[in-house]
């Protein structure tokens, strides 16, 4: 028996010694050497399934494709969208003709020069792919008129066009390369004009990007970016602390004090370009009654949701427009917490003895907590809520495809910082059901207001969206709950990081000191 014990002990020792010997490999991100570091590891919340930005709406895909591809316009830091990959975009007086002037210096990563044909092809590809339908629907035609100019004609004035062109859906690709690879090939072998090119993609493990030394706006400081999927937030936090990754988005709010007390880490935060909302199906028998919806508005206390479910990270939403989007107005009067008023409204609606509703939601830790608080608050005024947490596919089927739900919680993410990007798809009658309008509002009045807001001049935009929001809140279609914060935590040495409401970061702006 002694021998067995000895063997066991030896094995344990061998293991622990091996463990100690493994020191070198443990901190790949903290490699030393002379001069500033030129490589970084970026933690993504999930692995992208494709790197073709025109065929999916996924933040993880866009995180990578923003490094691989460029867009014609880009935000300038003060909220305006300005020409980026082209020399100029001239808009006609009537707002219907966009003349894009080519930047002749731009080269693709395969060495070929960017042409007007490529630009027209890329925009046409987006239109044909059917994604970004809310943006592409305004484009009547796009044409490379000569070697220097592309003319894009709109069918109606659209004040979000410059912003749309900055969204990943309007990435500029090489016509010849796309035709050679085909749609399938582009998913795994992207090639653009971007600051980085794809070097390696090990399925499930990592994606490696290498600097494009011939980038038209100058070679980036970070030469190698490794993107690793880290699905668990606790794991992401530990990987940050252990120096295994240099950046990670949206850590658990409760970890923020730990980060602030850690000199090796830095946290950046800003409002996200989305609104956490309670959606109501106005086609439901009970919820078609406006008074019931208004009662729900009055029964929900947003501050409790922020404290109880979001660890205080967020502010009460007053409008369905995210704060960071053009068209947002802080003066929009949001719902007021007034349980007495809620009871009165329910009584007027004929439900003085209470009523029952089902709140269905996709499996998600935060939303599950939000749902419990809403259940408790609605319970106070006599609305008995049953929570039905569903597996993701079943939820999408129920809410989007079939539309036979009562209440649900969700956030609609904007693609560029304009109210249009969140409002149109969610509330226009043309987007009914699966395309985004899950509240099933089909009034001509609201759709008309939305069309007018999309055509309004920049100076009238806020007023136009105020009218839209007033309509939505008056009829209580959707209850905006919280403006959530989005954060990025990086190693302290990483500079050039600006918090992004869209959660998309440009690696080319990053550098180490």
């Amino acid at each position, binding site marked *: *028996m002694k021998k*067995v*014990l000895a*063997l*066991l002990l030896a*094995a344990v020792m061998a*293991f622990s010694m*091996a*463990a*100690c010997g*493994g*020191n070198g*490999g*443990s*901190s*790949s991100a903290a490699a030393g050497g002379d001069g500033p570091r030129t490589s970084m590891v970026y933690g993504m919340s999930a692995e992208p*399934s*494709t790197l073709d930005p025109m065929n*999916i*709406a*996924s933040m993880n895909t866009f995180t990578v494709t923003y490094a691989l591809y460029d867009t014609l316009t880009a935000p300038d830091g003060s909220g305006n969208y300005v020409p980026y990959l082209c020399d100029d975009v001239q808009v006609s007086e009537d707002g219907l003709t966009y003349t894009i002037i080519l930047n002749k210096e731009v080269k693709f990563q395969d060495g070929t020069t960017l042409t007007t044909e490529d630009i027209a092809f890329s925009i046409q590809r987006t239109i044909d792919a*059917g*994604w970004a*339908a809310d943006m592409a629907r305004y484009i009547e035609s796009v044409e490379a008129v000569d070697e220097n100019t592309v003319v894009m004609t709109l069918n109606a004035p659209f004040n979000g066009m410059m912003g749309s062109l900055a969204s990943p859906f309007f990435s500029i690709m090489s016509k010849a390369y796309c035709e050679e690879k085909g749609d*399938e090939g582009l*998913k*795994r072998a992207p090639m653009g004009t971007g600051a980085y090119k794809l070097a390696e993609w*090990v*399925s*499930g*493990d990592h994606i490696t990007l290498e600097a494009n030394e011939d980038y038209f706006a100058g070679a980036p400081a970070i030469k190698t970016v490794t993107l*690793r*999927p*880290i*699905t*668990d937030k*606790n*794991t992401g936090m*530990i*990987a940050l*602390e*252990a120096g*295994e*990754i240099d950046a990670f988005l949206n850590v658990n709010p409760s970890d923020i004090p730990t980060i602030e007390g850690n000199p090796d880490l830095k946290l950046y935060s800003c409002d996200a370009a989305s609104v956490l909302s309670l959606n109501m199906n106005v086609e439901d028998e009970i919820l078609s009654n406006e008074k019931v919806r208004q009662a729900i508005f009055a029964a929900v206390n947003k501050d409790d949701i922020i404290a109880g479910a979001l660890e205080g990270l967020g502010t009460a939403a007053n409008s369905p427009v995210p704060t960071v989007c053009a068209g947002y107005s802080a003066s929009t009067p949001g719902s007021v917490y007034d349980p007495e008023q809620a009871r009165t409204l329910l009584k007027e609606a004929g439900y003085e003895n209470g009523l029952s509703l089902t709140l269905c939601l996709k499996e998600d830790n935060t939303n599950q907590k939000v749902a419990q608080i809403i259940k408790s608050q609605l319970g106070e005024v006599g609305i008995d809520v049953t929570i039905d947490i569903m*597996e*993701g*596919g*079943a939820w*999408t*089927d*129920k809410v*989007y*495809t079939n539309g036979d739900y009562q209440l649900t919680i969700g956030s609609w993410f904007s693609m560029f910082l304009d109210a249009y990007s969140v409002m149109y*798809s969610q509330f226009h009658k043309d987007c009914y*059901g*699966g*395309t*985004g309008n899950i509240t099933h509002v089909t009034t001509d009045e609201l759709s008309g207001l939305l069309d007018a807001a999309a055509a309004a001049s920049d100076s009238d935009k806020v007023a136009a969206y105020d009218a839209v929001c007033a309509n939505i809140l008056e009829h209580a279609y959707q209850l905006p709950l919280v403006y959530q914060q989005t954060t990025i935590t990086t190693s302290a040495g990483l500079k050039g990081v600006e918090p992004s409401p869209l959660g998309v970061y440009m690696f080319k702006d990053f550098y180490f000191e």
Partner: protein
Amino acid sequence: MSKYILKRLGMMVLVVLGISLIVFTIMNLTPGNAAQMILGQSASPEQVAKLEAELGLDQPFFVRYFNFWKGAVQGDFGKSYQTSLPVFEEILTRFPTTLKLATAAMFIATLIGVPVGVISAVRQYSLVDGVSMVTAMLFASIPSFVMGLLLQLEFALNLRVLPATGAASWQSYILPAVTLSTATMATLIRMTRSTMLEAIRQDYVRTARAKGAAERSVVLNHALRNALLPIVTVIGVDFGYLLGGTVVIESVFSLPGLGTLLITAIRMKDTPVVMAAVMFVTIAYSLVNLLVDIIYAFIDPRVKSQYAKG
């Protein structure tokens, strides 16, 4: 024996056929639409319909099932709906991670579990017995995400001796394998203890003792050898679980294994990946169990004579 093995392999084919039908049915019956999952919530119904046609999802159930097998027998398991990669390739890149993890965990569990079980049985009701049983069970009942997190905090953050995440080096496997091994270890300790207790009371053990054999030889050669049968069963069964059930641990340690692939595929209704992954695990698992049964024959002559007959 070889006749028996052939027969078992033949049965494996039947098992795989049965599983493929069940899994295919499950994937088709559960709500959620692969095309919708690929395109996301905001896709228009026309886009969904177009993609369904491209993927062949608009065909009747049995046509699709038949097409799956038509491809599979030619070695073509199709492409993932999500990534468009050939499924078989994808599985082959993921499987080694899971196999390494499961093997390492099984190794740790056996190396510690069997000896501790034997000691517990020999010293029944002693302090060693009590302490080792309680400890093993406590470790086994700590949820794996907590266990993983604690190990990461201690070994990756405090001591900085092991990596917390990834699969870059063999050291990366130590923490996840230890986390994964606890449940199997506890099962092994209890199973070993329980079968050993039975074995050391058998006549042949008494006889061996009476003949004057050394106590260690009695325990190891006579009792343990006979107690091995159920122990090997547990190892076989649990190995299958380890191959298919490493999801939480893969996510906590962010390892690119089969478990994450399978769970993502299930959630995304990526039928080709689910089918191929489940069948792959099944075949691996059946082979392990076949091996277990062959080992049976070697450690238990009674079972061997049965095989010779049938």
